[in-house]
């Protein structure tokens, strides 16, 4: 089985506990107003628009398929700018065995791997196979960074075969959630419950966007929800910053520092030291 990988970061300190390889899979099923990585949303249509625009000549059109030569690429991301399909020509197909071998080459430096995206659970079967093979051969843990917008049964299977979920909860209020992401959050709450009961809901992450979900009641509701769920899940609050935003909110202001601390305090009153995150621009 092959996975479509957007990129791999050999080691990351912000994608779960300890030292983790972060594997970003291509494809997403939400349409967030503040998306930073719209190029991860769709699969390449091989339209060839990027081929004409690549200044390094790293992209070619071979029999109707766009191919990317990593060795020549300057990394200017011009191809991402011109892509009309929210995709990237720089994705790579990885066989399960090859990815597992690559991870194990560096096992000594890692506590585990984290699948992220895009929305990595769109390729849940690939994750399951990698996780299965990895666990046969090592003690590495597998975490999944997800929006939890996945069919319940599939989500359950996934949770039963990995070590941790880092869940994006964009908003508590259903109307607000739909406005921010284009979808309802009922299924997401279901899945958060599932992950919690299985003991794998490592953390919930919420980006606080000015004028949208930066209301104390929102934060209060999210914190209370987590408190009701269990005694272990962490809440990470992330201040919205427009740097790197390529979607609708690219002109929106950053969340002011005072506002962030106010909301942080609201969450801390409910969850205590289980809340973390910091204000950094």
């Amino acid at each position, binding site marked *: 089985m092959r996975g479509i990988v957007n990129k791999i*970061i*050999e*080691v*990351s*300190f*912000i*994608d779960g*506990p*300890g*030292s*983790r390889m972060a594997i970003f899979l291509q494809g997403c099923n939400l349409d967030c107003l*503040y998306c*930073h*990585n719209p190029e991860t949303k769709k699969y390449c249509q091989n339209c060839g628009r990027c081929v004409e625009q690549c200044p390094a000549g790293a992209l070619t059109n071979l029999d109707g398929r766009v191919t990317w030569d990593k060795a020549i690429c300057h990394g200017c991301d011009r191809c991402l700018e011109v892509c009309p399909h929210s995709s990237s020509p720089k994705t790579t197909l990885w066989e399960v065995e090859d990815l597992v071998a690559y991870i194990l*080459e*560096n096992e*000594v*430096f*890692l*506590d585990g791997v984290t699948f*992220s995206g895009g929305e990595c659970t769109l390729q849940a079967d690939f994750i399951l196979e990698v996780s299965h093979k990895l666990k046969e051969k090592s003690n590495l843990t597998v975490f999944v960074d997800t929006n939890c917008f996945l069919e319940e049964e599939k989500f359950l299977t996934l949770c039963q075969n990995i070590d941790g979920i880092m869940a994006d909860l964009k908003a508590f209020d259903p109307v607000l959630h739909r406005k921010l992401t284009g979808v309802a959050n009922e299924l997401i709450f279901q899945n958060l419950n599932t992950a919690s009961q299985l003991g794998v809901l490592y953390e919930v992450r919420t*980006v606080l966007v000015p004028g949208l979900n930066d209301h104390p009641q929102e934060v209060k509701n999210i914190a209370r929800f987590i408190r009701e769920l269990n005694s272990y899940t962490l809440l990470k609050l*992330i201040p*919205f*910053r427009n740097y*790197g*935003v390529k979607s609708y909110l690219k002109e929106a202001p950053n969340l002011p520092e005072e506002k962030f601390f106010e909301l942080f305090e609201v969450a801390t009153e409910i969850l205590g030291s289980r809340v973390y995150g*910091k204000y*950094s621009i």
Partner: protein
Amino acid sequence: MKLETLSRVRRAMNRVYEIITDTSLDYKDKRHLLAAEAENFLPYVKISEKAQNYFAEGILCDLFEGHAPYRPRYILPDYQKFMEKGSEYLNLKPPQDLFEAVNALLIIYRYVPSITSYPVYLGQVDELLEPFVLAAGEELSEKLLKMFLVQIDRVLPDGFVHMNIGPKDTRTGRLLLKLERELKQAVPNISLKYNEETPDSFAVEAVKTALEIGKPYFVNDRELKEDLDPAYGVASCYNTLLIGGGSFTLVRLNLKEAAKKARDFQDFIQNVLPDAVLAQAEVINARAKFIVEEAKFFETSFLAKEGLISLDRFTSMAGYFGLYECLEHLTGLKLGQDKEALYYAEQVLKTAKDTLKRVPGAYCNGTGGRIGFHAQSGIDSDIDVTPGVRIKYGEEPDIFTQIKTEGRLHKYFDTGISDIYIFDRTARENPEGVLKIIKGALEEGIRVFSFNTSDSEFIRITGYLVKRTDVLKYEKGEVLREDTVKLGAASIKNNNTEARKVRIIGERNSQ
């Protein structure tokens, strides 16, 4: 007087006048340079014409140690013995409490000679002070240790002054790490000896400190104990030497310059490199003999008389640098990028080491009668040549490949080797993750792992630290307390220190 002698005298007088009237130097710097000028008025210790030519060609370099050395370059006194016995010369009895212990150490530090005139080794400070700290209690200890650290920074303002802690978890070790985080001083340099017994909670404290202020280094205790001596210390930058001993001298060989003399790689390995290494050993031995036999250091130093150092724990060091450029010149391969480069790198190191170890090292009893093999980290005047056997700054591959490549090379070096890894600021959120990488690196053979964050106020130069704000002050012409700042400022420019790749980028667009 002969004309030649007369012009030599004139030159020396001019130089002395220049030093005395130099407004960028303070009193202690002037005194140090004047002493060097006096020493260099003597002829160089006797060496062959061939060796002299290697100096002239820029292949050998003695790091401005002086023509007639009168003290070893690095000395690592046995401070434990000093604490147990006191010192007759210093008129000090064995300390009975933390006040006396701190006082005793601060006194003896002033009496430990070195090439920099400052002590380059402060001892295994956590072990030395632990019994007194336990007796004194937390509050008092914190206050006294703070004064101890402040005094070291102010009275011994030199980035090569080096303290060791670990591998055991101690109250003192934890207090020192915490205080260093608060004080944010460039001095002293610190090494943490790390092994399987070092508890994670203590190691994480050290990681947190290093992510703030670029120290301590993590030292591969298991490997160095096995390879060197169970009682070893880390002095100055990355010099691993015996406690109760030290190194007479450090003469280094520029592999890049040497490579230019070779027809091809085979010629380099068979002829050029062995010849240069033999000349290097000759100079080293001449210098060591001068210290012992003519300057009679060991017959006059109270450290030797009172058994705090002993001749049979000393060695000398042969340093190597510019391997990256040497390989690039001879094979066209880039270390870290091209896999075959590693094979050639090992050939170079094996040849140099085998040649060196065939020659008896004068008074090198600390390393089995042979000269120590050392990766020299570079100095401020090196231009376009990479320190030690590191990968050229800015050309580093991914961090895992870099560690694995260098891990293969570190095992050759018994008297010091290192590399520096720069993380981005997200590392501070996850010190446990950093520790995992360090553990992996040590497992892969890295002997000294030093690291820093890209936004740190501190810049690690070759091995010592300088503060960014001090470099700016120096560039504006201010006279500074720390004599290492001017070395650092020149190094940053010449060695492209700031081009080091930031290895772990967490600040991506992950919202």
